[in-house]
């Protein structure tokens, strides 16, 4: 298997706080790679460095062999990286259908296209695709509602649909089930398994170990800004260092 993402010696400080400390990570194509770690470990910061929200102080990140540090967010997305944020980032004032259509248009039209004359309603293929995706995440019956009216869990699913419609090569999920009920969490796990079959590589950050062990092929443990362990789920379960850092000695 080839590495789709390669993170090498990445460092990031906020003032005196060293949030990432010589971080190295290789993500293999087609796998689900979980990153776990206690609150404030630097997980979201690492994702921010991948999508262009933050620029690491030192180190390099390559996606499909191509350096991406310093690229603006829209360029990184156009290369095939999509992200679900820890707090849902959606178009609150637009309908669910529009929310999903926008990323679809971005994928088809590129970062900018002055398409001021063609009616959105004429883009039948995209609309159909958007309706399909909404069906996949279980929001089809609400497609004409304004997104602001959704529950937090539904917003997450909408955001997931917005990413999925772009058929990204790499999908970054920052706590995709946080704030969801048990039933919704299980639905999301099923959904992520289903899209896993489409061969999208995923990095998933999650506190819910049930989700992690249901999905991950590989787990890396981040603590205080640096990776302290990396392995298959079984290896991680038995690693005393992980239990020490992450669970304060309790058993996984």
């Amino acid at each position, binding site marked *: 298997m080839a590495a789709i993402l390669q993170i090498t010696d990445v460092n990031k400080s906020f003032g005196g706080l060293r949030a990432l400390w010589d971080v190295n990570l290789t993500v293999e194509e087609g796998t689900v790679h979980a990153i776990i770690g206690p609150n404030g470990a630097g997980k979201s910061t690492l994702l921010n460095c991948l999508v262009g929200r933050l620029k690491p102080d030192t180190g390099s990140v390559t996606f499909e062999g191509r350096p991406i540090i310093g690229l603006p967010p829209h360029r990184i997305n156009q290369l095939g990286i999509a992200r679900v944020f820890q707090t849902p*980032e959606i*178009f609150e004032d*637009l309908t669910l259908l529009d929310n999903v259509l*926008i990323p679809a248009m971005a994928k088809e039209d590129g970062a900018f296209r002055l*398409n001021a004359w063609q009616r959105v*309603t004429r*883009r039948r293929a995209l609309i159909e695709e958007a309706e399909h995706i909404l069906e996949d995440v279980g929001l089809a019956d609400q497609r*004409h509602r304004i997104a602001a009216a959704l529950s937090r869990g539904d917003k997450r699913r909408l955001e997931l649909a917005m990413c999925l419609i772009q058929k990204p090569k790499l999908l970054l999920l920052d706590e995709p089930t946080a704030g969801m009920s048990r039933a919704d969490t299980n639905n999301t796990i099923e959904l992520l398994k289903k899209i896993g079959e489409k061969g999208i590589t995923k990095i998933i950050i999650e506190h819910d170990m049930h989700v992690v062990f249901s999905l991950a092929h590989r787990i890396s443990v981040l603590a205080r800004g640096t990776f302290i362990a990396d392995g298959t789920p079984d290896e991680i379960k038995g690693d005393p260092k992980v239990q020490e850092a992450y669970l304060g000695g309790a058993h996984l």
Partner: protein
Amino acid sequence: MFKRNARQDLIFFLVFSAFVLSMPVLLAPIGAGYPDLLQKFAIYGLFAIGFNILFGLTGYLSFGHAAFLGVGSYAAVWMFKLLTMNVIPAIVFAVIISGLFALAIGYVSLKRSGIYFSILTLAFAEMSYKLAYSVLTPLTNGETGLQVKLRASGPVTDLINQDVRVLDAAMGIEENGIPAPSLFGLEITGWQAFYLCAVMLIAGFYIAMRINRSSFGMMLRAIKSNQNRLNYTGVYPRPYLLAAFTISGMYAGLAGALLAVTDPLAGAERMQWTASGEVVLMTILGGAGTLLGPFLGAAVIKYFENIFSAINENSLHAVLSFLPDPVENALVSVLSMFVGEGWHLTLGLLFMLIVIFLPGGLIEGFNRLIGLFTRSRKQTTGENREEA
């Protein structure tokens, strides 16, 4: 009611066009049935419709759009002076020049967002205003304003005071005195002027409607809703914003050109910040982001401006003469603050009331009324937001 369905849009557009063209009859009962006022509705309606493409769709609040109006007026008058009194070159040139001007100002201003963007646009417009009075007087004729003059018979030494109208001259068009703007021989004054403005308004409205329903329009709305998400969705917002800014600048230029067509004189006061503020008021008053709102806001403001600014102390005394003298005098001195020159005080109050009670503008008011009537028939679920 007017969702994005093409057929419904067409009906909506036809109703709008019919209304605009029959304003002279429809609005006669409220005392607005004369061309001077109606063409103002159309011209400022265009200005606001264009402004709405930037402000209503993207949420970027420009405080300098009057600069493009002014540039449009100057450009049009120059065409009258240099080329021909035909309005077509004047209008086309004005739209192009104001578009270029907007492209440049937008390029710089859009490096910032929020209040910093607003202040940058305000600064550019005030600079233009001051420049028009100072170093640019060879182009603007300073405080006197740029005017159409007699065609020079001999050698031309001073283009400000001697017109050439090379095209008209080449075509052998005779001039007795200072000519009026024309459209292939038809003089554009009075009702002709109104109908020219009305046709422009209808065209401008149609283009705005298409933009509203297009993929481009959707991206503009996405910018307003969550620019951050849009970035991570692979869209580069800056060129979208610049395109919206430029288009709205071109609308302002068109409005400026029509002001020059209906009264061939361009002055710098058209660029002042108060004029920029007025278009903001019109758009918000009518309903920012809606199709009809900006035109409605412009018409309402120009209508009331016309009524209130015509009232003076004498007319107030006349109306209130039945009251005892001390009461009459007290009342007149209070009311006179709100009329005539003080009309802006009334406008300010009106604006405050709207923003507080109807933040979606007059259109929201109408939608609420319609909602009241239809609720009994159909359960409103909040699923369909009105967009007209």
